[in-house]
């Protein structure tokens, strides 16, 4: 069952197209990761979905209703945490949480106290004294105390320390178990990996990849860091090896997903003393995507992306 979707969503600010035909779809009980670099259109997409910005073309729907026209009705069942949390300097954190929960209307879970304790927030302090992380906590606590069907979270962990990030992730997992849907934007791939079932990658207002993480990984393949007794020779000639870099005594390179076996076999001849494998970072996924796009253009075959 589809909870949220955009169909060819386009948003223009003057001549500049911030979004150019964005299609995403979040099903019930799904955690959907929305990743891209800064300024790629993540926040714009979320704002259109919340009826704060009006779509220039295309559709944005939540619960099958129009994001712009039925905004108030939709919002009773949605909790949103904006990317940049600006609060009122002369209200306390506690007051803001109560205000947010009340303005949501609809139901709310009776766990304000629990959340305040877990996130270690002092609700008696004025918002002017809060750091970025504390402001983020205020928005998160308000969102997580609402009993809603969809959470829209724009880079929710920016400014949180790792401990608080864990607390946040626990609540996301709990919400997922209860069949809630979550749309989570981020520019940190590792965060998306831990939580998300599906991922869409956006760049310059266009979705460049969608699918499960496994599918995306398939496009890339791991980064290997290998240290050997004897220097590895002619590595660049092996099929599926890219981006070789000398890292101290070791070599670091990327291996195409289908070629891992071949490459390991080749490398092991040189007497491996240390080997580390890490998943590709977001940047590497992007780099990969451009290389792919470049090749496709060279060969003149515009493939399906």
């Amino acid at each position, binding site marked *: 069952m589809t909870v949220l979707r955009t169909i060819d969503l386009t948003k223009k600010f003057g001549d500049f197209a911030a979004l150019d035909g964005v299609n995403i779809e979040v099903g019930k009980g799904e955690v959907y990761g929305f990743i891209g670099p800064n300024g790629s259109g993540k926040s714009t997409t979320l704002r259109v979905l919340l009826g*704060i910005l009006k779509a220039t073309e295309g559709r944005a729907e939540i619960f099958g209703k129009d994001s712009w026209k039925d905004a108030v009705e939709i919002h009773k069942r949605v909790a949103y945490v904006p990317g940049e949390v*600006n609060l009122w300097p002369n*209200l306390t954190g*506690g*007051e803001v949480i*109560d205000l947010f929960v009340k303005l949501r209307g*609809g139901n709310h879970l009776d766990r304000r106290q629990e959340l305040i304790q877990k996130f270690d927030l002092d609700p*008696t302090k004025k918002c002017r004294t809060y750091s970025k992380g504390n402001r983020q906590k205020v928005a998160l606590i308000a969102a997580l105390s609402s009993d809603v069907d969809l959470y829209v979270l724009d880079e929710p962990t920016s400014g949180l320390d790792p401990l608080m990030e864990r607390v946040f992730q626990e609540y996301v997992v709990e919400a997922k178990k209860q069949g809630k849907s979550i749309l989570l934007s981020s520019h940190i791939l590792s965060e998306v990996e831990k939580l998300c079932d599906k991922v869409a990658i956006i760049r310059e207002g266009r979705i460049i990849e969608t699918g499960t993480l496994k599918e995306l990984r398939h496009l890339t393949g791991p980064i290997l860091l290998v240290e050997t007794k004897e220097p590895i020779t002619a590595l660049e000639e092996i099929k599926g090896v890219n981006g070789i870099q000398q890292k101290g005594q070791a070599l670091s390179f990327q291996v195409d997903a289908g070629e891992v076996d071949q490459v390991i076999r080749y490398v092991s001849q040189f007497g491996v003393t240390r080997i580390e494998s890490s998943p590709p970072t977001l940047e590497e996924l992007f780099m990969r995507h451009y290389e792919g796009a470049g090749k496709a253009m060279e060969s003149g075959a515009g493939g399906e992306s």
Partner: protein
Amino acid sequence: MARHLFDGTGTLVRFVLRRDRLRLPLWIGSFAVVSVIIALAFVGLYQNEEERQAMAETMQNPAMTAMLGPGYGVDNYTVGAMTAHEMLLMTAVVVGLMSILLVTRHTRTDEEDGRIEMVRSLPVGRLSNLLSTLLVLIGANVVLALLTAFSLAALGIESMDLEGSLVYGSALGASGIIFAGVAAVCAQLSPNARSTLGLSIMVLLLSYIIRAIGDVTNETLSWFSPLGWILRTEAYVNNYWWPILMTVAAALLLMGLALYLNSIRDLGSSFLPSRAGKAEASKSLLSPFGLALRLQRTGLIAWGAGLLLIGASYGSVLGELELFFEDIDLMQQMIVQTEGFSLTEQFIPILMAVMAILGTIPVLLAVLKLGIEEKNDRLEHILSRAVSKNQLMGGYLAVAILTGFAMLSLAALGLGLVGNAVLEVPLSVGMFYGSGMAYLPAVLVMVGVAAVLIGWAPNLTSAVWLYLAFSFVVIYLGGLFQFPEWMGKLTPYGYVSEIPIEEMNYLNAAILIIVAVILTAIGLLGFNRRDIGR
């Protein structure tokens, strides 16, 4: 090492000057310009000694003493004596305010925003920031004193010689220096910039009030207020220098205290504890209207008190109006004589118009607050919840309308109640109130204009201030400059019935309200149709 406490002060002085290179000249220059304009206005307004003497009579009542300080030189009320008596205190208060704002900006605000931390990580003394701020403030006030003094002396007005002008200017400068000291101490005591400002301004207001009570009842009390001291200079009459020396000495003591307090506290800490706020919101906050009201509460209370005070001070001179008018030709041009009404009654609508336009300022601020919230990215929080744009904007409009009602009420009651206390034949308080309320429909039209701008041209909202300024010029000075009548019809205030000299015109009022409703609806429509955000 103690001598390293002040390392880098010279560089920081230049840095403060660089940051305030526009702010300081504007502040200082405007004091000199305003002083000159007022002095010249007095020369033009009162052509001869009799007229000035009549004014001196008007000034001889407790209300005026409380407001402006004790009169002196009233036997020979020269232009100089008049300027000093009527302008020194008010100007000194504003100079004090300037110092408070500038000191707070360079001390607690910088500390709160983490800028002092960066400066302190450099090879700079612990006290250099405060000292450089104080040095700049002392310098600025000295320049202000000299510039004002020489500008006034240069006018060549007979009663305003160089010595008197120097005393007058120095009295202003001394006020600036002592309140710089006050703010510097408050910055050490208070936990943040806002309470530094609040505490300093409270000291300023208390100084004013203590002096007011002292001047009216028991002069000893006035000695507890720095504003009381500088009034004792009696510029242009006796030219006493000792109050200035005394004020500056006290200021230096305060600055020393501030430096000492700064040296024994940690960066970011304060001597007054920061109070814990409420952990939970009260019911009254939990709606778009409640939030809008709460965010503007302090400002609205201040405006309300201000309008009540202005109304009361106009009221306090109502008793002397007849006398005042007979003597001054210029004033008679300002109002059109109407048969069957006293001059006092004829003057009431003019006073009301001025106060209504003044009272419109907080009303417009209340509407435009919505735009400020939008620019600060805080509307997202509200609109991403189950709140419609109509509810959101409606909250701000409701606050604005209530503000308009409250401001007009306070101004009218202040004028009426105090006016009746001094009038020999009291007028009906209901009439005063009606005269004020007659302006409410016009104020609502201004709300509508602001709403249209918010809805359709959020970047041009300041245009509404131009319209208000235009209205003020047309309504207040229209009679004086003999503007054609149609110009008065370009502003909603031009359609208001001038009670008590005119009957209430309910048709006009109804039309104004309809226009206001239509404009507001257009504004809401635009707000509903457009994107929210910068």
